[in-house]
């Protein structure tokens, strides 16, 4: 027996398989008991971003991502640990975050909420603006003050605890295997451009989408183009840990932003805008308008300032110079500045009379959010503001995108699925092992067969980890099927070699006979699944590729090993 075992482990094919196994395990890089929580996202303009914590690149391997190990010398080992500690932070407290890469110091901010009182006050606001005026052909800078009186509800600022430090985390992954969305939760969107695009336009579209999502603060994402057999173009976006609504509003909108005066376009989002303010001093809930409520509905106004290019400012001057000044609660121009988003008018801003014919580059954009409670209204207003800012910064998409499919998978369900999928794999393997043992009554057949199947799965997962492709439920189904055909092929090998031993063929011939059948079945599975790689926007691509890859590993690496091993074990 010892001689046989020695013979097995000195066999070239067995050694090749073992090398593959070692490489696969290295690629999977299992780290049981890995410490800390992994940074998924850093919210823009948050105190964490200010402290210099880097937004992780989406291509980073799961195990090599930056991990938070300690906060204020307290070990952080789970998402729960993280939030439990973060919740105790006071405003203006200095926090020390230790990651596996660096030590960061940040100061928490105060979360200010504006509470509105049940009375209104008259308020005169003064706006001081610098304008460029053309007098006798030369541009002169002039300061102008406009006075305006408005009714505002009396408001009071109160501190509502600590502002979130702006780090999104998830439990540290113990392997480099990337879990697909249906196993970890997140949102998958399939977008179809309204008109068909050239390849270069498609890639620039993908870049714009990526920028838009990144500006919004989502970075853990996969964007790729996909097509189907009839030549339809799709864009597939997968974002871990994002909600469906965020994605819908960010991507379904083309984001064509136009500002018009008397139907003449003054400036558009993206190229005409040089700066969008996103810091608290010039963006946020409008301190002059605040929040109000009527009939159970709460409204909150937001405002932020933007700067436009001198050319756009000149257009503003041209459009306003011939307008009349009318008296309506203050002096305004006869035509308002109208803001259009995707050809729908979203706001109308009255232009102060003082701005007539001026080439102003600073413009304030405002809007509002509603909600059943004031808190909800604030959240909605701020959300709308953030989305509008994102659209203004990144400009419009070259074409309107239709959302043709959205899958939003709850992280709880994903976790359940993963545990379940692993258990199902184990149960199927055990039951197959039992059947094989009952059939052959030989451990020399059953043990190699089950071990070969396990090694096929490990190599398959290793390759998946190496090329960074996601293991989702369809891929799990592919693995189960690859293992199933693997067992079938090993049964063919076992039967061919055990059959009528010693009579006509030698071992070589028997194994050749077995592989004749195995190759035929391999080729048919291969060609049967190839069309699926290209069909239906690639949604079943994972399934097809996993199955093909699994079958290929089996046929070329592991199943020949099985043939050699049982030859060594059973040959007299």
């Amino acid at each position, binding site marked *: 027996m010892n001689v046989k075992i020695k013979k097995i482990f000195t066999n070239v094919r067995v050694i090749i398989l073992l090398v593959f196994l070692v490489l696969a395990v290295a690629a999977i890089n299992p780290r049981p008991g890995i410490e800390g929580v992994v940074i998924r996202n850093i919210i823009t303009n948050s105190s964490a971003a200010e402290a210099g914590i880097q937004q992780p690149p989406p291509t980073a391997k799961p195990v090599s991502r930056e991990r938070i190990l300690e906060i204020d010398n307290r070990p952080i080992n789970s998402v729960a640990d993280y939030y439990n500690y973060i919740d105790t932070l006071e405003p203006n407290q200095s926090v020390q975050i230790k990651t596996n890469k660096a030590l960061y110091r940040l100061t928490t901010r105060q979360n200010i909420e504006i509470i509105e009182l049940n009375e209104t006050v008259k308020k005169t606001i003064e706006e001081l603006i610098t304008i460029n005026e053309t007098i006798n052909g030369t541009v002169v800078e002039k300061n102008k003050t406009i006075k305006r009186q408005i009714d505002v509800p009396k408001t009071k600022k109160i501190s509502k605890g600590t502002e979130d430090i702006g780090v999104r985390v998830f439990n540290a992954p113990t392997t480099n295997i990337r879990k697909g969305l*249906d196993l970890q939760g997140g949102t998958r969107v399939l977008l179809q451009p309204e008109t068909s695009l050239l390849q270069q336009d498609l890639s620039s579209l993908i870049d714009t989408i990526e920028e838009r999502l990144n500006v919004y603060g989502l970075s853990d994402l996969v964007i790729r183009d996909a097509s189907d*057999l009839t030549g*339809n173009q799709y864009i597939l976006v997968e974002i871990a840990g994002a909600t469906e609504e965020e994605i*819908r509003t960010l991507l379904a909108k083309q984001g064509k932003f136009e500002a018009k005066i008397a139907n003449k376009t003054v400036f558009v989002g993206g190229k005409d805008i040089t700066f969008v303010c996103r810091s608290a001093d010039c963006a946020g809930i409008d301190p002059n308008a605040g929040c109000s409520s009527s009939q159970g509905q709460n409204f909150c106004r937001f405002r932020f300032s933007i700067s436009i290019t001198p050319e756009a400012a000149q257009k503003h001057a041209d459009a306003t110079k011939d307008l009349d000044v009318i008296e309506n609660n203050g002096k305004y121009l006869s035509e308002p500045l109208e803001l259009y988003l995707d050809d729908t008018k979203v706001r109308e801003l009255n232009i102060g009379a003082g701005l007539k014919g001026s080439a102003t580059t600073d413009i304030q954009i405002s809007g509002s959010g509603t909600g059943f409670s004031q808190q909800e209204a604030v959240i909605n207003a701020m959300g709308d503001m953030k989305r509008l800012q994102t659209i203004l910064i990144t400009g419009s998409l070259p074409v309107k995108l239709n*959302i*043709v*499919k*959205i*899958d*939003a998978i*709850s992280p*709880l*369900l994903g976790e*359940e*699925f993963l545990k*379940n*999928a692993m*258990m*199902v794999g184990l*149960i*199927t*393997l055990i*039951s*197959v092992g039992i*059947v*094989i043992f009952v*059939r052959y*009554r030989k451990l020399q057949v059953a043990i190699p067969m089950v071990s070969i199947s396990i090694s096929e799965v490990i190599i398959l997962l290793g390759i998946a980890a190496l090329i960074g492709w996601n293991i989702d*439920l*369809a891929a799990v*189904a592919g693995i189960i*099927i690859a*293992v*199933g*055909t693997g*067992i*079938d092929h090993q049964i063919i090998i076992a*039967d061919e070699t055990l*059959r*009528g*031993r010693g009579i*006509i063929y030698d071992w070589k011939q028997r194994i050749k006979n077995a592989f004749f059948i195995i190759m*035929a*079945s391999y*080729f*048919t*599975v291969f060609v*049967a*699944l*190839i*069309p*699926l790689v*290209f*069909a*239906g926007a690639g*949604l*079943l691509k994972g*399934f*097809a590729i996993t*199955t093909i890859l699994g079958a290929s590993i089996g046929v070329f690496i592991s199943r020949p090993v099985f043939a050699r091993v049982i030859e060594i074990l059973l040959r007299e």
Partner: protein
Amino acid sequence: MEDNKENSQENATEKNEDRESTIENNTSEENKTNPNETKIKLPKIKLNFSGMKKIYEGQYKKLLIIPFMLLLIAILLIGLKAAATGDFINRDVSLKGGVTVTIPTEQKIDILQLEDIISKKFPKNDVSTKSLSQFGTQVGVIIDVDIGEEHREEQIGILIEEIGKVLNLKLTTKDYSVEIVGSSLGASFLREVVTALLIAFLLMAIVVFLYFRTLVPSGAVILAALSDILITLSIVNLLDIKLSTAGIAAFLMLIGYSVDTNILLSTRVLKRKEGTDMERIYGALKTGITMSLTTLIAMTAALIFTQSEIIKQIMIILLIGLLVDLINTWIQNVGILRLYLERKARKSIQ
């Protein structure tokens, strides 16, 4: 070389014809040729099968009627369904367009009652509910509604709220999964996967033909695969299973599995020289049944334990398909191969 092979096959056929009259002899001889396997096969079971064996070996032409009748009925049923509903399968929301909401919950929920309540709220839509189950116990609910493009967001909001009311929960986005498929995408998906299936079938036929280079045996393998798909599809329809994209992928896999056993059979019978035809058929049968049995058991286990609807549907279709394949390989294909060999033998005598 070719002549030699033909001769041996011819001999084999003649020998085989002799055998048919002396079945008892045959079995005992088989025992002698395979002494290793006697300890596995229990003699008691063998006795029970001897009557069946007689029919299997002697009446193979009459037995051929079974798979062909099944195929005919299947084609008829699929045709009737297509004529009645305009669709040859039951499409689920992933192929029709609509919304699927999955809610994992510990609560015991009467899904029929839930379906009733939601149907009342969405009278124009097709509503179906399923249990999300593991080990046969309910761990959540899945609700499919074929909500169209119009006012979709609003409708989904109403749906979630309604489900929340039934479950007595305030559902936040973290608590449920929602999958939305546009109806045009659903229809194009169906076209796509059916095209993929046709291409796959064609490529498979080419591979099989290149492998055997003879019309009848390759035709038999291809026919078996076609029968597998059609009969399985009609059974799936009869069971009122709503097919998803994953389900159609399962039909693709079925091609692979079905071809496996058929190629095994044809290779053993046509390309091997040892023993008689019947012996080689039994050899292939033994290997083939072991293969199907391991796969069937693995799939049953997966079917019982999995939560995922994707995996469940793939497994149930493969399970039905493999059972159908047992008939199509070991009755249909065996019958055709034996007829083919007989005719070939007769020709070479003339």
